[in-house]
């Protein structure tokens, strides 16, 4: 039985909506591929957020309508994008200067594993025969201001993604500040994982059972508003 069948939890859009509430007004933000991309559609009204894509755009908008795609206007996931007024283009060295130089305030990534000390693994299983491909993930975690992760609480095979120590090759050490899952909002602290918020209909014991490391309960755990 898969993890999805044995517990309630947030949808991908609900996870993205919860994560979007953490992004402050005025932030320069880089969104990873997958669920993180959904966050842009859920920024609370009244906040202006500018999106960076590491292949060389600041200030891109939603995907274009079908038929209006431009093969030379794409994001880091190689998908077509549009530009918002005030957008800019730049070459790769400048783009990664923005990242490494600390000019990107907030970065939301996917994960294969997050360890209780904040280590992140999200680029390779290290399996024999796998083609290793890293892209910009190691640069983003080394340089962006606040690194948070959105991911299902468990992998497709039911194994926990929040673990004591990563078994997959690392993307970066001690880099993750917070994890948004379908079950909970979990902070990475000097004491390890701390549960801050929990999805409606999910109880603490369930989250603990599906977490591969000790999970401390914060005082006054809140229920996530989907």
């Amino acid at each position: 039985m898969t993890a999805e069948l044995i517990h309630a939890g947030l949808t991908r859009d609900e996870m993205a909506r919860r994560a979007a509430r953490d992004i402050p007004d005025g932030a320069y933000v880089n969104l990873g591929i997958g669920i993180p991309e959904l966050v842009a559609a859920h920024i609370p009204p009244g906040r202006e957020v500018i999106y960076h894509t590491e292949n060389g755009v600041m200030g891109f908008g939603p995907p274009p309508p079908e038929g209006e795609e431009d093969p030379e206007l794409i994001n880091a996931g190689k998908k077509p994008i549009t530009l918002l007024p005030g957008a800019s283009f730049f070459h790769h060295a400048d783009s990664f200067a923005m990242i490494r130089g600390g000019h990107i305030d907030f970065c939301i990534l996917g994960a294969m594993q997050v360890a209780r000390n904040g280590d992140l693994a999200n680029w390779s299983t290290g399996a024999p025969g796998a083609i290793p491909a890293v892209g910009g993930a190691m640069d983003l975690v080394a340089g962006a201001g606040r690194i948070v992760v959105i991911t299902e609480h468990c992998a497709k095979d039911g194994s926990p993604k929040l673990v004591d120590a990563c078994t997959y090759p690392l993307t970066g050490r001690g880099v993750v500040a917070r994890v948004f899952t379908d079950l909970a909002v979990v902070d990475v602290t000097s004491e390890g994982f701390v549960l801050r918020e929990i999805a409606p209909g999910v109880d603490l014991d369930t989250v603990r059972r599906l977490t591969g490391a000790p999970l401390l309960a914060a005082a006054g755990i809140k229920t996530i508003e989907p």
Partner: protein
Amino acid sequence: MIDKRVGDPAQAVADVKDGDTVLIGGFGEAGSPIELIHALIDQGARDLVVASNNTGNGQVGLAALIAAGRVRKMICSYPRSSNSRVFPELYRKGQIELELVPQGTLAERIRAGGAGVPAFFTPSSVGTVLAEGKEVREFEGRPYVMERWLRADFALVKAELGDRLGNLTYNKTARNFGPIMCMAARTAIVQVSRIVEPGGIDPEVVVTPGVFVKRIVEVANAAHESVLVAQGVTYP
């Protein structure tokens, strides 16, 4: 008179030698200089070391160069994509080398090569397998890994407008690695959509100053990799 224009892609790549290091622009298909790569396939140079962010799609462009057995080693950040079969097959058979580099490190190594800086320290990859065997030094309490410049014999780049002096503009996200690859190669070869008179590009909007460019060739209506792949085109 300075005139960097050459007649066609074949002339532009005629002197690439076996064993040369070639930087090839593009992020996915955006900015991939397909016509120059096809000319390089026709030209026949072998044992190339190629640095490019990806490894191409289908059986055209960079993927076709690799499929033709011309590339000994790829220096690359992301050698996978939905339509990329050529590189993975050769890599699994041990018939092509891979130097995997974080994307920002790849860009900075190329920039450093063009800027005359032989090495630099970066926080990217510290504590990971990609930093193994590299010098790590602490600055203000934080560890950084030393990376070396990447310089090349040639660069193949796609730009938008160019003049006979080599001044360039780019098209949207096709800019990506173009400007820094022009800097880092002894001979930067650029295909442009249109050649204009000197002065035809406002000096305020020149992205690559002509000093970095050796040859420029006009390729109007350049092919897009995804269109060729969708049409099932294979090269040669």
